[in-house]
Every structure is written in C-alpha cells, then in structure tokens.
C-alpha cells in the first residue's frame, strides 16, 4: 500500500519505506507500526492523526531517532535518522513543555544553544528573537512554574525554534491546553509556518486542529499501527480560525472522520 505522494525524491525531507516496529512487552508483541510508507516534501505541514495507540507518536519518534524501527528504511534529509540527529537537523516539541525547573525562561531557551556550542552573543540574540516570536518578551527572568501551561509550551516552541532547524517535529504540543489557548496557539503556529517555510510534522488527535494547520493529513489506525489515508488539504494561506465554519473545511474534516471511523474497530 503506497499512499505517499509521488513527488521526486530530491525534494523529500522525510522518506519512510515499509517501516515496521514491534514493541516486546510482557503481554507479547505489540505491532506499533506496520508497513508504513510516507514521504514528506520540504515546506509541507504534515499532520499525523489517529486514536491513541495508532503509532503516530511512535512514527515521529522513529523519524527523530528516539526509537529504532524493527524493519524498513527511513531517511531524514537524505540520511539515516541517527545521522540527522547527530547533525541536529530537526527541532522537537514534546507533549509536555519539558522545561528545566531550575532554569529561567531565557536559560531554558539557551539550553540547546549552549549544547550546540553557539557563541554567547549569538545565543542571547537567538533567545531574544524567538521569545519575541512566541510573544514572551518580558518573561525572560521568570521561572517555568510562574507561567501558565500555554506559556510554558510557547517557551518550549521557542526553544525548539531557537536553533533554527528546517524541520520541526511537534508531538501533540497543544494536547494538554484548554480550547481557547489552543486556538490562539494554532493561529500563531500557522503564521509561523507560513513566515519561516519550515517543514513541520505534527501529531494530534484533534480533527479541527489537523485540518486547520496542515497541508497534508496522514490518517492512522491502531492494531497494527498503519496509515489508512493521506488527505491533501490546501486551504487558502490567509485562513483564519473562522474557516472552520466553511464548507471546504467541513468536507475535509468529514473525510478525516470517515477515515478514522473506517480504521477503528470498536469491538476490540
């Protein structure tokens, strides 16, 4: 089953072929990923959507070299995920903010810059720049516990962006936030993607979020984790949150929902 786009290989940031991943647990083997094929072009915003346990996070962790596939081949920027990680080819935003409590907001954003050996001036400049981008100027000296959940997640986004990766992995970054904050951050993220032309891989289980943000939606299904549909989603670039009421939006959302329903057996 090859639902991947047929674009030329040269442009592919991510190339996944026949990837399987089994987790060996006490209760036996869990097929987290089964024969996954996917390619992602530069500048795309691709969302993985599916119910819990469908392997969407696992697939992204494979791309980021945080998990090793049992079989199949994966290329990120034309190299193995390990090489890509070693070359610091991507930024990763986790489900939780994952901030170090003993560091201020500024120092948390400086963390990857320190590790990657940026000069002191560069570090300061980049941290300032990206904190401003996520509208957190003025909060540099605060500690994580002094910020709301949404602000903490924005710090972690600034931290991922600060090293200016061309590829950004985001694992349900807004999953733990309330609806209002989430809408706001979705809007900000869309503008950010349009400004920076980065390639974004985004995991979510919210249909409106996926449709609003993505240029392509990958629908996944559990047991075994697999791709069941890939939906192109070319809503106008200048869209605002109001587009969620429009017929085009609802049509795509309907197709995603149908895909999810088809892949999900409630008798399990």
């Amino acid at each position, binding site marked *: 089953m090859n639902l991947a786009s047929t674009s030329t290989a040269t442009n592919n940031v991510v190339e996944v072929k026949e990837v399987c991943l089994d987790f060996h647990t006490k209760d036996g083997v869990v097929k987290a990923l089964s024969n996954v094929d996917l390619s992602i072009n530069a500048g795309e915003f691709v969302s993985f959507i599916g119910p819990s346990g469908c392997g969407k996070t696992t697939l992204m962790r494979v791309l*980021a070299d945080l998990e090793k596939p049992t079989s199949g081949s994966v290329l990120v920027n034309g190299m193995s995920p390990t090489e890509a990680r070693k070359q610091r080819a991507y930024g990763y935003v986790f489900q939780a903010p994952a901030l*170090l*409590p003993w560091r201020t907001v500024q120092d948390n954003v400086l963390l990857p810059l*320190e590790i990657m050996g940026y000069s002191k001036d560069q570090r300061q400049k980049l941290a300032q720049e990206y904190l401003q981008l996520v509208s957190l100027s003025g909060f540099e000296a605060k*500690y994580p516990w002094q910020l709301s959940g949404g602000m903490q997640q924005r710090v972690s986004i600034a931290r991922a962006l600060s090293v200016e990766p061309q590829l950004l992995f985001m694992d349900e970054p807004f999953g733990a936030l309330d609806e209002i904050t989430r809408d706001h951050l979705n809007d900000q993220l869309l503008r950010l993607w349009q400004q920076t032309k980065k390639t974004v891989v985004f995991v979510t289980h919210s249909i409106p979020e996926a449709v609003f943000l993505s240029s392509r939606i990958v629908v996944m299904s559990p047991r075994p984790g697999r791709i069941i549909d890939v939906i192109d989603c070319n809503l106008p670039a200048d869209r605002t949150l109001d587009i969620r009421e429009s017929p085009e939006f609802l049509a795509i959302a309907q197709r995603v929902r149908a895909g999810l329903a088809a892949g999900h057996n409630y008798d399990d």
Partner: protein
Amino acid sequence: MTTSIGRKPSATIPVLTVVVAIIMIWYAGAINLNSPQIIDRYEKKGVDWSFTQLATDSWNMKRAVLPSPHQILAELKTTIIDKNVTSKRSLVFHAGITLSSTLLGFVLGAGLGISLAVGIVYVETLDKSLMPWIITSQTIPILALAPMVIVVFGAMGISGLLPKALISMYLCFFPVAVGMVKGLRSPQPMLVDLLNTYSASKWQVFWRLRLPSAVPFLFASLKVAIALSLVGAIVAELPTGGQAGLGARLLSGSYYGQTNLIWASLIVAAVMSASLVSILGIIERKVCYRLAGGQEISNEL
C-alpha cells in the same frame, strides 16, 4: 505557592510537654534503678529511712546506675565550661577530635559514594558488578571491622585521624551511593529524550540534567551519612583504648563506672549529630529552593 499547611502552628508547647515528661520519667527511673543499692547501704548501717530520703539519695548518688538529669548537667558544666578546652578532661577537646574524623570521613565517604554512583549509572559493567559488592560491604558489622582496621593501620604506623575517618567513610558511602544512583536516574525520560534530540554528549547530559535532578536525593542521603559518620568515628575510637575522642570517653567512663561521664559524652554526641544534620538541612533548603526556581517547596527536615 504558600498554603496554610506550610505555616505550622508553634511547636513550643508540644516539645516542652515531651521534655518535661522525659525528665519526670527519668527521675522516676533513677529512683527505680538506684534505690536497691541505697537501701542496701541503709540496711548495713541500720538506719531508718523515708521515701523522701530514698529519692534524694537516689538522685544524688555517686556512680549511680542511672544518674539523674541535674547530675548530668553538672557533669556537662564541669567538662565543657569549667575545664580548659585543651585539657584532656574537657569534652570540648574530645568532641573536637571526634568531629574532625567525622567530617573527614563524611567528605571521603560522600566523595566515594558519588563517584561510585556516577560509575554505576554511566558504565553498564559497573552497574552489574559493583552493586552486589556495595551491598555485601554493608552486611559486615562495623563493630567487628573497626578494631581490625585500627590494629592493621596501627601496625603500619598509621594512627590517629585517618583510620578513624576510613571507618566513617565505610559507613557513609553506602547511603550516598544508593541515593545518588537513584537521583541520577530520576530525570523524566522526556527530558533525556529532549537532550538526545540536541545530540548532547554524556557529560552535557550529566551536568545540565542528571546532576541537578539528583541533588534532592543527594541531600537526603547526606543527612543519613553524616549521622552514620559520627557513629563510625565513635566506634573507631573504642578500640584505641581510650586515648581521645568521645568514643574514648564513653569507654573510660564504663571502665571506671563513671556513669555521669558516659551520659555527658552521649549527650554531646547527640547534640553534635543533630547539629550536623540540621546544618545540612539548612543548606538543602537553600539549594533545593534554587533548583525549584524559587518556588516554595514543602520540606520537612
């Protein structure tokens, strides 16, 4: 976040009540334990005696089985305040000797414990090979080991501070190693993953994530270790035949039946131990407050 739970009501009255109760039980116990000898003396002399007389004599008996609190206080006053600090009869002199070996043993033990923990966490072979030995080391009773260490070092011409500190170290390193291994492994997997996405080196992960995460565990272990270090120092002073240190004072007190001296030394040791643990507690609170980014954390000593 300050909550009303953090603001404890004053502890003065409960603490005082317990102190008064202990003193009352102590005086009663002194009568109970000392009266048989006193009654013996009365009967030998054939004198009449009242209970008041018995109580007064029990509480002021020389070489009492259980000296009463005011006798111990008097002993503390003579051995701490009245005697010159350099005198061999001054408890301050002996406490100083015990304290120096306690602190040296603590520093060596903490150093060894932390190094072992780093080895265990970072080198898989050490994880498998070292831990069983560390646990075995603690099953050997220190009372059996201490005289051998002192005698062997004595035969090699090494005596005084170092052998005693080594026994303290032997007791100290264990809680530090165990606590530190747990601490270094305590960071959330997500934070370890985060640093992996930066392709951070092992040492970057150590300094920026594992070590700061381990500090609360380290302090809990250090407080246990410093109390053990004092026990080690006192035990190490026993086989030296009463040369110097609180252990030596305990031993000579028991040789000559000077129970006042035994109790006074014990109290000095207890106060020293409590002070050392409290000092670590204060440092712990300061450090952990900073590690929590200045957030108020509940922290019972």
